[in-house]
């Protein structure tokens, strides 16, 4: 389809609608998971509400399935864009057998999806960043046409691991894009207690690579900046730090109570800048999305979420024997 001149973006109608679908699907899954937690049906949820537009903007700048992704725990929309299914997500949330990230060994939202080159990550933050640079280093050694996207929260860029990873990528001009999803909060600690710079992207200057800050509530703006960063990486121009300004519209996780550090007024104000609404309104105004199509998107999302919850509820737990392996590569089994 034609590029959308009205929106002044180099994206097809199909892509713009896919973005919207992914944002809606991610939001409805995320909301339902909070409900499941409040009902006492699951042990844990960590949310990406408010981050979705940035994630789908980034995902659509990649060659999905060819490029590699090293994500972090808020990346539900990014993972859906990479082919993680709602059923797979719900298996993980409920700790059921066959969950693709870890076989239900890890907490939910600790992603891995080998079939789409998404690498497993852990809970200690920033540990994934050196892996992304290592993958980039191997890509460069082999001369492959592959780019790595790695994501992280702004608080986690305080870790030495992030600096060491970005430094490596800059020294060797590696094909890595360091995406920072800046929601201003690291659990309860605001950005001004994490860093003296105004923007995380400013840190890039000290490491010798470009750093860009973009409105992460605007999927199209993120897509444009990400496309430039990915193109630069792919053409041998080296890494980029892309800081997307997003908003965390929920507590840190289901175990967090944000009332001690965030006013209700502040949270309420975020709703006026909901990235889902912003993207929908843009598509409606441009005539890309109709009211009827919008209702269909919502109905389809509800249906897929319902199906995923029903599927995962019925699914068996892993056999207890699965807790004992595979500690070593030689212990791997086909199931």
């Amino acid at each position, binding site marked *: 389809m034609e590029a959308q001149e009205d929106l002044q973006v180099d994206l097809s109608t199909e892509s713009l609608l896919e973005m919207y679908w992914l944002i809606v699907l991610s939001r409805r899954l995320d909301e339902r998971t909070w409900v499941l937690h409040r009902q006492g049906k699951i042990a844990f949820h960590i949310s990406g509400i408010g981050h979705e537009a940035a994630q789908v903007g980034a995902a659509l700048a990649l060659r999905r399935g060819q490029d590699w992704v090293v994500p972090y725990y808020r990346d539900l929309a990014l993972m859906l864009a990479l082919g993680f299914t709602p059923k797979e997500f719900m298996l993980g949330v409920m700790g059921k057998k066959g969950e693709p990230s870890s076989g239900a060994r890890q907490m939910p939202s600790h992603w891995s999806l080998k079939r789409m080159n998404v690498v497993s990550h852990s809970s200690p933050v920033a540990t994934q960043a050196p892996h992304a640079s*290592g993958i980039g280093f191997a890509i460069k050694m082999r001369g492959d046409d592959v780019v790595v996207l790695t994501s992280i929260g702004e608080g986690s860029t305080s870790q030495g691991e992030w600096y060491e990873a970005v430094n490596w990528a800059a020294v060797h001009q590696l094909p890595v894009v360091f995406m920072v999803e800046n929601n201003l909060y690291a659990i309860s600690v605001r950005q001004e207690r994490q860093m003296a710079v105004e923007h995380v992207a400013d840190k890039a200057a000290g490491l010798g690579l470009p750093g860009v800050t973009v409105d992460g509530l605007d999927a199209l703006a993120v897509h444009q900046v990400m496309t430039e960063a990915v193109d630069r990486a792919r053409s041998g121009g080296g890494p980029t730090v892309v800081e997307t300004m997003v908003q965390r519209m929920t507590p840190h996780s289901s175990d967090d109570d944000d009332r001690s550090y965030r006013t209700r007024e502040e949270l309420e104000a975020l709703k006026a800048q909901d990235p889902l609404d912003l993207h929908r309104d843009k598509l409606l105004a441009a005539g890309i999305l109709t009211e009827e199509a919008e209702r269909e998107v919502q109905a389809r999302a509800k249906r897929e979420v319902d199906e995923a919850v029903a599927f995962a509820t019925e699914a068996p737990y892993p056999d207890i024997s699965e807790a004992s392996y595979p500690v070593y590569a030689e212990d791997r089994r086909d199931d």
Partner: protein
Amino acid sequence: MTEMTLIEGLRQGMDEELERDARVFIVGEDVGPRGGVFRATQGLYEKYGEDRVVDSPLAELSIVGIGIGTALYGMRPICEIQFADFIYPAFNQIVSEAARMCYRSGGEWTVPMVIRAPYGGGIGGGLYHSQSIEAFFTHVPGLKVVVPSTPYDAKGLLKSAVRDPNPVIYLEPKKGYRLIRGEVPEDEEVLVPIGPARLSREGTDLSVFAYGMMHHYCLEAAERVSQEGIDTELVDLRTLKPVDRETVLASVAKTGKALIVHEDNLTGGYGAEIAAILAEEAFADLDAPVRRLAGPDVPAMPYSHPLQDWFMPDADRIADAIRELAAY
């Protein structure tokens, strides 16, 4: 057969694996034109180039973290930590990441990598160039830990570690780099499997378990006490994780007495694991309490020569411990 030093065996092992498999590369501080501060990688940069023998920034966690990333992409990194004492910044990457990757991904992702580190004292290295670190890593499921004590094993274990599909911690007794010499065959491939211990001296009166430089001193002590009529059996553990239970238990079944020697601190040291195995599985075979001879529980080895000697177990002290146990 060619006689060579332990570090030459190690270097030859790396050379052959670089030659054999294009996925293998070395990364670490000063490993390039400098050939490593101990010269372990000497000549490899010239032979294989800067893409295969890579000087890293001076940041240990990144050496391991980058290595993990390359392994995930299909490479076979050999990561050099310049001194074992400097491995702690990389602890998180080794323990949280490399060791747990296979399990936490249900086997989807694995980390075939070697992490080499010169360890141990007796070289005037003071607190931060003398440490033994094995106990931190033998505790961690998902890792393998090996310690060669001969040039043959240095070569053969290195080559096996490179070919292993898991993260392998390869600890080098640096005092023995040039002190320990031995025969290594030229016309056959030297591969020492990870797992089996080596019965390095047969005896009937008591069993001594050691590894690395301490194995060398134990051998010296065993020869000395043999002139007094004490017949010592010596086992070079050489793979600490997984431990070779069968060899340990078979030896104690024969001798009925066990002494474990390491230069790492006593408390929570590797000797405690061997002692626990014997207490659980060889109780009926034991004719004497299990003994441990280890470094003292001070933070690390002091620099000053007499203070260093106070810390480091040697052939004299080992011979005394053998005599005491034999007389029990």
